[in-house]
């Protein structure tokens, strides 16, 4: 009897222990599976259909190493993505990450539609190129994970340059204009085609501010002088006249270059691929050189695309979102993407990769473009005017003023003065409304 009691007592203790262990194990299993199934939806802008394999493999890789997380990739064209983001925020189901450009992000940040990512980014901040972080810093906080950017290079039609007696590329805006005029005089073709639908970016790159202390300052003597310089080159025929002030003059400009009617094309390196397919003869005689740095040392053409985090996300999801965001914008992935897309990565290690530095013995124009661009990337910033409501209408006033001044319809100073007055009226009202 006694023996049995002893045996059964230890047996009971054993059973109890086993039960306890079993319960604990079950609890752990339950908690693990409860903590699982985190769904992260991320949106890219206009990256289908070209990059479907890249993103699909990226998602698979991440899901394989993170068993509790499912990633959903959605892509929207640029003209639809804003509306869908807004309707999803209204519906209370925003995506975890969304591709934005810098001006959009600045406005959404001001209006409280996206959240700062300082904490989410954490120590990864130092892996990104400083210029990119600067682009995304508004009101002292960082508002996105940089993904890729671009920079302008100059593609030169060497045959036209030679005809004009030019032996080296232009090293400043003044030289660009001077060379352009000379090219026109000697060859009858235009030399230069700036994107003057964004005169604000143009002026900023030359180190001339647009707004200071809430007032428009683009009618200062320096600004007037700049526009006068452009006007002179325009009227001497050096600047391509077609669609100079159109919202998007890039198709016209690249068509002109391909057709041999434009000697120097300022474009991102990805354009070289188009030249290669559309006009192989011009491609063969194209030499790519860096675009001149302005007085600020900034290169034109920066257009940073990044991942922003909309407001309204479930806070429990944020750590997983941060982890994925850091993953998708890390060195390795950015480098892979940059190679595929002919754009530039925004992490320090990736942009220093030898892929951008080495050149074959006779680099073709595309390779030259990438090497040249990589060098210039360090000084690439997205140039725009921040913090102003309804910016487009103001920009339109400035475009019209510059156009009137350049084409001679109006005196340059008078045109800029009129536009500045308009800006000041609206800016004053905005300041008043707070």
């Amino acid at each position, binding site marked *: 009897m006694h023996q049995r009691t002893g045996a059964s007592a230890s047996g009971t203790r054993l059973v109890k222990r086993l039960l306890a262990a079993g319960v604990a194990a079950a609890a752990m299993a339950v908690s693990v599976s409860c903590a699982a199934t985190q769904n992260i939806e991320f949106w890219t802008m206009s990256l289908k259909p070209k990059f479907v394999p890249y993103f699909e493999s990226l998602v698979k890789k991440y899901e394989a190493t993170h068993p509790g997380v499912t990633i959903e990739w959605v892509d929207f064209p640029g*003209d639809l993505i*804003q*509306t869908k983001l*807004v*309707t999803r*925020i*209204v519906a209370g189901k925003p995506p975890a990450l969304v591709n934005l450009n810098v001006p959009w992000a600045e*406005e959404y940040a001001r*209006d409280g*539609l996206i959240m700062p990512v300082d904490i989410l980014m954490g120590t990864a901040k130092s892996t990104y190129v400083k210029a990119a972080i600067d682009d995304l810093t508004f009101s002292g906080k960082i508002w996105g994970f940089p993904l890729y950017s671009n920079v302008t290079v100059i593609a030169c039609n060497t045959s036209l340059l030679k005809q004009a007696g030019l032996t080296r590329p232009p090293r400043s805006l003044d030289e660009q204009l001077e060379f352009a005029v000379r090219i026109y005089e000697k060859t009858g073709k235009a030399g230069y085609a700036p994107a003057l*639908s964004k005169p604000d970016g143009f002026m900023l790159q030359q180190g001339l501010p647009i707004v200071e202390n809430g007032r428009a300052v683009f009618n200062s003597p320096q600004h007037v002088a700049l526009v006068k310089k452009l006007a002179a080159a325009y009227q001497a025929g050096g600047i391509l006249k077609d*669609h100079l002030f*159109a*919202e*998007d003059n890039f*198709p*016209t400009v690249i068509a002109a270059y391909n057709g041999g009617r434009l000697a120097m094309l300022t474009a991102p390196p990805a354009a070289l691929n188009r030249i290669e397919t559309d006009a192989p003869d011009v491609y063969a005689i194209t030499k790519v050189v860096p675009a001149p740095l302005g007085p600020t040392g900034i290169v034109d053409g920066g257009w940073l695309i990044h991942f922003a985090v909309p407001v309204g996300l479930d806070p429990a999801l944020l750590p997983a979102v941060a982890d994925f965001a850091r993953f998708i914008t890390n060195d390795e992935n950015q480098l892979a993407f940059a190679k595929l897309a002919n754009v530039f990565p925004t992490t320090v290690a990736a942009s220093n990769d030898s892929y951008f530095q080495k050149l074959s013995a006779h680099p073709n124009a595309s390779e030259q473009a990438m090497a040249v661009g990589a060098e210039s990337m360090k000084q690439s910033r997205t140039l725009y005017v921040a913090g102003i409501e*309804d910016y*487009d*209408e103001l920009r*339109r006033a400035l*475009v019209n003023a510059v156009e009137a001044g350049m084409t001679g319809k109006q005196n340059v100073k008078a045109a800029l003065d009129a536009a500045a007055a308009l800006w000041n009226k*609206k800016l004053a*009202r905005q300041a008043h*409304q707070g």
Partner: protein
Amino acid sequence: MNHAFRQSLRAYLFLAPALVLFAVFAFWPVGYGSYLAFTDYSLIRPPHWVGLDNFRTIFENDMFVTGLRNSLLFLLIVPVIQIGALALAVLTNNQLPGIRLFRAAYYLPVVTSISVVGIMWGFMFHEQGTLNYVLLQLHAINAPVGWLSDDAIALFAVMFVTIWRGLGWYMVMYLAGLQAIPAEMQEAAILDGATRWQRFWRITVPMLKPTMMVCTVMSVLAALKAYQEVLVLTQGGPLNSTFTALYYAYDQGLKHLKLPRGLAASFVVSVCCIAIMLPCLHYFRPKHR
């Protein structure tokens, strides 16, 4: 009494679902939306009354003012569509062999989704597109025109597409009206020696007056509320030149989540529409058969 009450009850049971849906999706938005236009409604906070602030904001906003002006410019298409549709109806109001096929062709744009229409005309309006080619061949223009990229022209290109799409619709309305004119009247007039022209002006037009009134009013309202064509063709560009009042509401409300502005703009459009409708309804009521 009891029977009448039961009858009413039954009637309302039949009507209930439709009335509820109308209340929620037709009447409520007009009322609530109008109220919200006077508040600072953003989804997170409850609305606070701000009086005319939103209206002040939008009327000082170049995009809205341009939009309103463009919506009024859109009224230019009303006579074009009405006269064109009437002409089409007269042209197809016969038994010529194959006339059904022609009527179907003219109605084709109407049964096509506006998104598809926008894409197709985007092709036509391309710099190197067919429209420019044809016009160049006809020597009507000297160089390719940027129909959708030139801010002086884009609005008219959009208006043209609206006309293209609307002609068939009104044509059918006028056809029905024409076919309701008793044949005897026309035959009697011919016997009396009236010319086509006289018959047209003295018989056809007066008998079509009700149809014309209905069509004109619908056309005017549609012009004021135009925005979907802008959305698919130009998205308000180039340089905001193709904004319309209601497109501004869409843009501000659903792209930038600036709801007070969107609602204020919608309110302005509603007011314009009602301002036009009321006198028309009044004009109609005594004559309503």
